[in-house]
């Protein structure tokens, strides 16, 4: 199993061990505090993910062939999800980040209480990260 898949499975295992929905969401909230502080220049309109009901800002970069990103949101639960996304994608090789199958966030344990618009918004955020990874991969490839 590749590392990205293994990380997603670890997240889902962790969530399964929590018995009730309230505790699971409380856990997600507590993860929000672990999201690294966002540099000032990230919370800018050009970094805002369109289509999210909450404000979500993402800024991706390449560092020594690895995919790195900063993230922020005005909603704690979304910040918790962004922290999990960071665990899955941040610091991975660009190609792996761009081509990975991201599925953990779609699990009913996480999505069960988000309305359709928010579910779509989270999907946009995940897709936007992978699009950035693909762009950075192209820019950094010898023929790019």
């Amino acid at each position: 199993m590749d590392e990205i898949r293994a990380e997603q499975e670890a997240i889902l295992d962790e969530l399964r061990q929590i018995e009730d929905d309230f505790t699971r969401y409380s856990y997600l909230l507590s993860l929000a505090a672990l999201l690294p502080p966002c540099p000032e220049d990230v919370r800018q309109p050009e970094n805002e993910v369109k289509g999210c009901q909450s404000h979500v800002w993402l800024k991706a970069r390449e560092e020594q062939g690895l995919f790195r990103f900063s993230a922020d949101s005005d909603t704690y639960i979304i910040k918790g999800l962004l922290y999990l996304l960071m665990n899955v994608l941040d610091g991975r090789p660009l190609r792996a980040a761009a081509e990975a199958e991201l599925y953990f966030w779609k699990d009913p344990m996480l999505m069960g209480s988000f309305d359709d618009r928010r579910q779509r918004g989270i999907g946009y955020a995940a897709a936007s990260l992978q699009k950035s990874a693909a762009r950075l991969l192209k820019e950094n490839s010898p023929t790019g």
Partner: protein
Amino acid sequence: MDDWQNVIRKRDFPMIARGNCRGKSTVYLDNAATTQCPRPVLWAMEDYWSLRHANVHRGVYCLSARATEALEETRQLTADFLRVSRDEIVFTSGATDSANMLAEAFALGELKRGDLVLATEMEHNSNLLPWLEACRRTGAVLELVKIREDGELDMEDLYRRLEKKPRLLAVTAVSNVLGTVNPLSQIVSSAHSAGAAVAVDAAQAMRCDLPELKSPDCDFLFFSGHKLMGPTGIGVLYAKAEWIDRLPPVRYGGGMLRELRIPEPEYESGVGKFEAGTLNLSGIAGLGAALEYLQVVGRRRIAAYERELLRHAEERLSSIDGLRILGAPKRRSGVLSFLLPPLQAYDAAVLLDKKGFALRSGRHCADALHARLGISGSVRLSPAFYNTGEELDRFGDALEQIAALSRTVGAGKHG
């Protein structure tokens, strides 16, 4: 719990009495968005569809005549509810539709470039956007009357703006976020002295049994059926008789034509000219049953009980460390909104859902109000007479737990 209240829970609102949704414990506290239909309302609609369905007006056969009678009975019931004439009651699809029709009629027949229209900062978008659009179309100007820090309408600001002789004031009877009960008699009388017509959004006020809404002084008043135990898709626009005569129709089609003369057709007089096309007849049957139901249970009793529930909730929520209740109006009715910083309203509502409480978070279609308060959203509690003090106590306990969690999150360095 009062005996009557226990009886109606079990007898009339089975979902409320059962207290669960898809097997999950649920206490429904989102009544400002929509209320549950009691069984008599459901029966009335079923009865309509299964035994009485036919189109109204001009049908010579028995079913059509009966359907017309039923329609007019509900018109009379609605008029009695408001203590006005049945010739002043127009059926619409809801409060939003009513406000849009009214604003369109004003744009067509009343407003001209440079005219002033007033709304307030506490309006629901439904009593603001139609007027904004009417102003854009005619070149009139829309201004918002300010609210004070405590959530009351700033009457001094209102008086100042009335000096500019606006054509109309759009004002809510009860704020759908703060629960502020506006001093309607005072507002309407001042507006009339300044020569302004007054359009009252009564969507949140119809269960409050406000004296101001009986034989109201205002020129227009509107509400939705689904916020007073009726079905969705049906609403009412009350317009004083002189306005019914004066305003032009804004929808054209079946049922409102008196004589086709091209290019100037002659339309029905009276409320008929505003009711083009086939009305929502089963919705009207449901609305009639809802009004009768409220009368039978007792409008005063319902209002008093709901006020007591809200007072109880306010007392409980005030004791929660870190919770901020929005506004402190002298008279509050129907709703209570709050924040649990640093949690966003959405976070708090999701956690409340996990604890089995159905509440709404966001701006509640009151964008101007939230902008004025400088907040992006709030959580809104809106109990109805089928809720109990015990449910609100449990709600308070859940909020206490979430507040503790919120303090932990707030203590995180990166929140």
